[in-house]
């Protein structure tokens, strides 16, 4: 977005273009639907805080608000900027922690040192982020507005004197070095000893035997408690020996109190959503899986998703090093319903989940699985999956299923996204066909967008709004479970043909691999 526009508005939030728009237009899908689509697993993997979880749980309806977030997320794709933001957050959080500890009394200079530590970290956090944002080529309104706001904070007199005074006090204390002679229970505090460090001598004498570089020292592994009575004793003696830096510390704390600007603290919380999501999909991108920012167009333009995949499944598989097979999903012109048939274990349910996930993630403002994705706005996600193994007879389960379907149909509008996975699986084929036709007639009449996974081949040619997709089984490696689901007429023989391919290729395959 043009910088001119960005400068015209003062910074409010990285998540919403206007504060008033916050949650009013958010969608709230049912918890069961989140589970059906694997979204709960995605949220669990992504959300590092309750703030992030709240944002991830509230997809937006307004395309303009979605675009605002996409801009911010795109800017944060820059690794440099993300690194800067990460260290900003680390410093800011450490500063807050130090201030919380401040109340602890009885330790010499406890309060003064806490304020100093917090100030040093806060100064570094804000100045660092401000510089990084200035150095970055920002296209988002959100971050451009934040940059301007931070620049004015950093240029202010309060911040300038905080930075100067904290550095002076900090440097004085850091320059102190001392020695401890510990003999039994007696401790003598003195100046830095002139003798060698034992570590250096050992390294010189025994380094010749090391076959690998020595291990990195882990200074934090055995850190003594900072505020012990012993350390208090040592400090009092140090302060008596070196009064100057301790006086400078007291002086600093007397002049500076509220170091953290509340606006800066809020930005930190809002960043969770963006960083969590990008961190979650990073390993998938590293594994070569494509992600893109979906465009949101009118319903008549249809929907197009190239090389897309189930994000929840991909998170599991990539962690285990297994391959992912992407699929294309398309609804052209008047097409509304994808009817998915084919052999089991062929990726049918995965495809249905993917369709629902894409809409949900797009409405969060996130990049979604796929090389290119175009979707239309929607007002709700309605799902129907088998509900575990609920005890009871077949008739009881069918009754339950039909009841849930009735509720789904009552909630559906022309802008709903409906995902049906194996409806009527517990009935006979004839019954399922009969019920399926009734169900599709209603969905078609509503003119909503739906994916229906079914074992009833006949439903794939239901009407002109219906598109047939068929899952393929890779006979070469049945271990691959997320397989191709292709747009083609339902064909009971596809499986048998695929298996036939496996035999009859032995020699040709060998010769092919030998070709340079």
């Amino acid at each position, binding site marked *: 977005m043009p910088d001119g526009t960005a400068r015209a508005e003062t910074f409010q939030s990285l998540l919403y273009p206007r504060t008033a728009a916050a949650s009013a237009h958010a969608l709230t899908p049912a918890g069961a639907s989140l589970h059906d689509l694997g979204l709960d697993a995605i949220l669990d993997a992504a959300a590092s805080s309750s703030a992030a979880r709240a944002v991830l749980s509230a997809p937006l309806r307004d395309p303009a608000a979605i675009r605002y977030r996409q801009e911010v997320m795109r800017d944060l794709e820059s690794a440099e900027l993300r690194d800067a933001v990460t260290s900003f957050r680390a410093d800011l959080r450490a500063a807050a922690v130090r201030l919380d500890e401040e109340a602890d009394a009885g330790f010499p200079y406890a309060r003064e040192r806490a304020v100093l530590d917090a100030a040093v970290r806060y100064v570094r956090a804000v100045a660092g982020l401000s510089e990084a944002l200035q150095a970055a080529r920002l296209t988002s309104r959100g971050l451009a507005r934040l940059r301007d706001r931070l620049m004015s904070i950093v240029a202010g007199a309060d911040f300038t004197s905080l930075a100067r005074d904290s550095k002076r006090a900090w440097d004085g204390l850091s320059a102190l070095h001392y020695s401890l002679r510990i003999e039994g229970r007696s401790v003598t505090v003195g100046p830095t000893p002139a003798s060698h460090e034992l*570590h250096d001598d050992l390294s010189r004498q025994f380094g010749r035997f090391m076959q690998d570089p020595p291990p990195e020292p882990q200074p934090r*592994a055995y850190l003594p408690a900072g505020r*012990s009575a012993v350390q208090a004793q040592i400090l009092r003696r140090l302060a008596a020996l070196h009064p100057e830096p301790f006086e400078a510390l007291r002086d600093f704390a007397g002049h500076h109190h509220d170091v953290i600007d509340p606006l800066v603290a809020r930005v930190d919380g809002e960043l969770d959503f963006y960083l969590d999501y990008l961190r979650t999909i990073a390993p998938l991108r590293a594994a070569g899986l494509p992600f893109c920012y979906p465009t949101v167009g009118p319903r008549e333009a249809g929907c197009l998703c190239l090389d897309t995949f189930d994000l929840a499944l991909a998170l599991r598989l990539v962690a285990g090093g297994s391959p992912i097979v992407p699929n294309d999903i398309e609804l052209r012109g008047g097409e509304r319903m994808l009817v998915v048939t084919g052999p089991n274990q062929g990726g049918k349910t995965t495809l249905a989940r993917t369709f629902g996930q894409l809409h949900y993630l797009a409405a969060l403002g996130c990049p979604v699985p796929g090389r290119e994705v175009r979707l239309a706005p929607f007002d709700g996600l309605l799902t129907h999956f088998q509900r575990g193994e609920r005890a009871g007879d077949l008739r009881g389960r069918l009754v339950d299923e039909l009841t849930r379907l009735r509720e789904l149909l009552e909630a559906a509008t022309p802008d709903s996204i409906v995902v049906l996975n194996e409806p009527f699986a517990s009935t006979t084929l004839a019954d399922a066909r009969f019920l399926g036709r009734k169900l599709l007639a209603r969905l078609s009449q509503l003119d909503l967008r739906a994916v229906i996974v079914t074992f009833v081949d006949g439903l794939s040619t239901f009407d002109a709004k219906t598109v047939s997709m068929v899952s393929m089984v890779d006979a070469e490696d049945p271990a691959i479970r997320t397989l191709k689901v292709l747009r083609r007429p339902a064909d009971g023989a596809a499986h048998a043909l695929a298996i036939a391919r496996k035999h009859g290729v*032995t020699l040709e395959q060998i010769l092919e691999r030998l070709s340079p």
Partner: protein
Amino acid sequence: MKVRLMLPDEAFDVRQALPAGADALSSDLDLDAVLEAMSGGDALVRETSRVALLTAPRNAPEAVGFRQAMLRDALRSPATVRRLYGLAGEADARRRKQWLGVFSRSPTGMLAEAAALMHMYLDMLARLRSIVTDAPAELTSAAWRGLAESVRVELDDGFFEAARRTLGEVRRGGGVHLSAGLGEGNAGRDYALRRASSRRPGWLAWALRRGPATFRLAPLDDDGARVLADMRNAAAAPPAALLAHAAEGVREIFGGLRTELAFYLGCLNLHERLMARAVPMTFPTVHEAGSRTLRFRGLVDAGLALRSPGRVVGNDLDLDGKRLIVISGANQGGKTVFLRSLGLAQVLAQAGLFVTAEAYEGAACNGLHTHFSREEDAGLVSGKLDEELARLSGIVDALEANGTLLLNESFAATNEGEGSEVARQVVSALVQRGVRVAFVTHLVAFAEQAHRAGGPATASLCPELLPGGTRTFRMVPARPGGSGHVEGLYRDILAEAVEGSAGSG
């Protein structure tokens, strides 16, 4: 300090991943017979030798020369090799006895334990030095000189003296002297242990001048004692980790010495066994991979020579420039044994050993693979071809240019026409890609086609049949014959029965 007795630039890793197909190579070439002779009953010798042989078909000629020279030294002074091998074993045994493998949790304790362990190692290193220094002067290989030089430079008197002093100080215990700075929250940081060498004067003067710098913990102040212990631990952690790491390094040095000497010990054992059987041995000349050199005199299969009670017939052949060697002809004529002897000689030569021949000169290969027909699947004919081609496919994955593939009766699980066509396509593709192929086959159509079309880069060999049909078990260049291959057997076994009865009837 590093041990480099098997490879010029790196330690030999006995736990390394073996090349694809190593199991097949081992069983197809009957490596067990050779390894049994090498081991002399020592499991480590056997295992090291096994890995050395199975990884040999990648070694470059320089590495081969490096090992040959060291092996010559070992043959000159077997006692030195055996004494060093014993010392390395003792170092390991003493470490196990003294120290059960887990350092204390606390860095202070860990520092003391690592110092004790290192103290023991200093004794062993001193003995290492005296064995190496006392070795005969005629040991001149680069490998040996590298070890001797490393001992001279790294294990000099100055080292032992300084090292014993530092360790003594660490082990004495008592008070400690450490340095520190101030970090966030005015907590201490950068704790470091100091050497005790700087003695009191400056310190004492300072303390007296600046007032009461000393405080004592109350007798029951357990928290305070804990904090002091933490400070000592924080200071002890880096030197403890360093010393433990160095001790681990010494363990690896002795471990490496033991492993690499185990290989030469295996070579010595094998040499003794073959000498006892009067089997000829020669250090081969090994040329660059791709040079396609291969000629030998009196080459025998080492495995067969070790197993069979009598004398084994040797082969004399000049196969220079051949990319494809097709061995066909009479059964029971020694074709498979010959193919094995080719493979085993390649393995031994590239491992840096002597070869069981009177003379041997050959090119290094870039990976050696075997595809021997598996008898156990003979029942299912279609399944067997399936299995063979799947196995071949795995080999193709692993093959590289200048690799070598030994095929034994492959593709025989179908009729001769089809089998020959598969063989033709596979072999010509492999040869085009620079793979050297030796193929024992009954597929006459293939053997004839290869002979016709192969030109000078193809050798056709058959078992020698003397007039009258006597087998010599030697391979000779010969045009593959369509009908000859069972004639000998027929004559030996059946002819009398068939013709005798025909004649009488």
